[in-house]
C-alpha cells in the first residue's frame, strides 16, 4: 500500500509519525542519498552517517516540505547542505599546489569515457581533494552555478571556476592515462 503513495501523501503520513511510511521513505531514498553523500565525502563511513542524519532530519522537519518540487529534491538539498558543513568543519581546505589550471589535455570522447569502468570513475572522483570534489559535484552533477557555489562555500566565483578547472584537468588526466594503458 505504501509503495503506491505519491510523494505528497508519503510526506503527510511521515509527518503523522507513521512508522511504515518512514520505512517507505527510507526504502525509496536511502540509496540515492547515500550515493550523493559518498560522492561528496569520498568515503563510506562518513557517507553512511551523513545519510542517516539527513533522513532523520528530513523526517523531523517533514512538516516544512510544502510539496513544491520533488520530495527527493528537498531531501537532496538537506544532504548537500549537511555534506558541505561537514567538509567545512572537518576538512582542511588544502589542495596540492597547482597554479596552472589551464590544461592542454584534449577532451575525452564519448567512446573513451564509456570505456572506463564505473568503479574506476567513482574512485577517481572520491580521490579528488575535498574542495575540488565538492565543486565538481556541485557544478557538474547537481547543477549549481558558480555564483551559488561561491555563496555555499564562502569563496569567490573566480575561485570556484578555477577549482573546477583543476578538478576537470585531474579527471581528464586519469581518463587519458587509463586509455593509454589500455592501448598498450
Amino acid at each position, binding site marked *: 500500500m505504501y509503495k503506491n503513495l505519491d510523494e505528497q501523501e508519503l510526506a503527510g503520513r511521515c509527518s503523522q509519525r507513521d512508522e511504515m511510511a518512514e520505512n517507505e521513505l527510507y526504502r525509496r531514498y536511502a540509496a540515492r542519498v547515500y550515493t550523493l553523500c559518498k560522492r561528496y565525502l569520498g568515503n563510506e563511513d562518513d557517507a553512511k552517517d551523513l545519510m542517516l542524519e539527513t533522513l532523520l532530519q528530513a523526517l523531523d522537519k517533514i512538516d516544512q516540505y510544502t510539496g513544491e518540487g520533488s520530495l527527493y529534491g528537498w531531501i537532496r538539498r538537506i544532504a548537500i547542505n549537511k555534506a558541505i558543513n561537514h567538509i567545512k568543519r572537518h576538512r582542511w581546505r588544502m589542495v596540492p599546489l597547482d597554479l596552472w589550471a589551464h590544461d592542454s589535455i584534449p577532451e575525452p570522447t564519448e567512446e573513451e569515457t564509456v570505456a572506463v569502468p564505473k568503479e574506476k*570513475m567513482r574512485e577517481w572522483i572520491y580521490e579528488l581533494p575535498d574542495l575540488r570534489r565538492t565543486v565538481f559535484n556541485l557544478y*557538474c552533477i547537481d547543477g549549481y552555478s558558480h555564483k551559488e557555489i561561491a555563496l555555499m562555500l564562502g569563496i569567490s566565483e573566480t575561485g570556484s571556476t578555477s577549482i573546477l578547472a583543476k578538478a576537470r584537468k585531474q579527471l581528464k588526466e586519469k581518463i587519458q592515462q587509463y586509455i593509454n594503458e589500455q592501448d598498450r
Partner: protein
Amino acid sequence: MKKWEDIVKDIMEEPDSALPECVFAEFRARRAAGRDVTRKTTRPLIWALATAVAAGLAALLLLRKPNAPEEGLQLIQQHPMLEVQVMDTSDVVPPDMSTLLIAQATTPRTVRQPATVKQEEIVNEPEQPDLQVTEDVVTDNAPSESADDEPSIADYSPFIPQSARDKNVKVNLGTGAVIAGGGLAAILATQLVKSNARTPNQALSLADGGAFFPGTNNLGDLGSYSHRMPVIVGISTRIRVTEKLGITTGLEYSLYTSLYTNSLFSGNRTQHVHYLGVPVRLDWVFVSNKWLDIYAGAGMKGDFCLGANITETELGRDGPAFRLLGASGIQFNATSYLGIYVEPVISWTLPSKRRVLSTYSNEHPWMFSVAAGVRFNLGY
C-alpha cells in the same frame, strides 16, 4: 554525442548498491530511540545548563561569609591612639585623619606590625619637645607588644584603598549575567587602562583611607609598586549548542604578581596571588575546520583565591572576584575533541568589599589579559 562530463554525471547518480543492510536497523533504532538531530543539539544544552548550575552553586558556597572569624583576611578600623598626639608633628599628621584603617589578619602569620619606630621610644620619651619627626616616623597604634625593630612585611602589603571598598556594590550576579550576554560590544569598546608603576604618593595615602604605612601621609620617596598582567592558563571545554554556538566553561588558574619596592628595606618584595577561576561563556565560532577554530564570545567568570603570599610570608585567602568578560581566540585542533587555545580577553571586575589585596585587577577593573590552555570539544 555526449560530453564526457555528462557520462560521469550519469555514473555518479546511479544508486550505489553497496548500502549495507545493517544501516536500516540503525536508522530504525535511532528513529525509535529519538536519537535524531534535534536531540543531538539539545543534549549539550542540558549539559551546559547543568554545568552552569553547578558552577553557580560552587560560587555560592565560596561566596558565603566565613563562619569562623579566623578565616581569610579582614580589615578592621582602629582609632589612632594618644601616642600620636605627643609628637610635634604638625607638618606630618593629617588634620582630617579621624580614623585609621589598619589591615589586619586575625591569623598570627598576618598580624600587622608597626613599621619603623620602636614603640618604646615614643612611650619613653613623650615629653621631649624637640622630637624630630622624620618621614619614617609612623603613627601606627598597634599594640606595643607587637613592636619590632624590623619593618613588617604586612605594613607595605598592598591592601586596596578604603574608598574603593566603600563603594556601594549594587551589581548582583543576575544583572551580571544579563550584561554578560549582551555586553560584548560594550566591552570591546572600552578603553584599556595602561599599567603604570605608581609612587605611594599617587597611589595610597591616608586621605584615601589607605593602609600604606598607616600614620603618615607623607611617604615621600619611600617606594613604589607595580602590578604585572596576570598569567592565565586553563583546562576548558566547549559544549556545542548549535552549528556555530557553543558554551565554554572549565577551570582557569590565574597568577597575579605585584612588585613592591621600598627604600626602608633592602631589595624588592614580590606579591603573588593565586586564583582558580570558573568561566562560563557563550562563544560564536565563525571559522571552523579540521585544524582551526576562530571564535568570539562573552560571559562571566568567578575567580576564587587559593592563597596569597608576599615574598615568603603567607597572606591568607582574599575574597572572590567576579568578572564580565569578552574574548576572541584561536584554537588549534589536535583531534576532533582536543585543541589548544590562545585567547585575548577583555574583562571588567565587579567591585566587591570582600577583596582586600591590591592586584592588577583591582587597579584596572577593565583588564586585558591573554589566556591559554587545553580545550575539550564536546558534541562536535
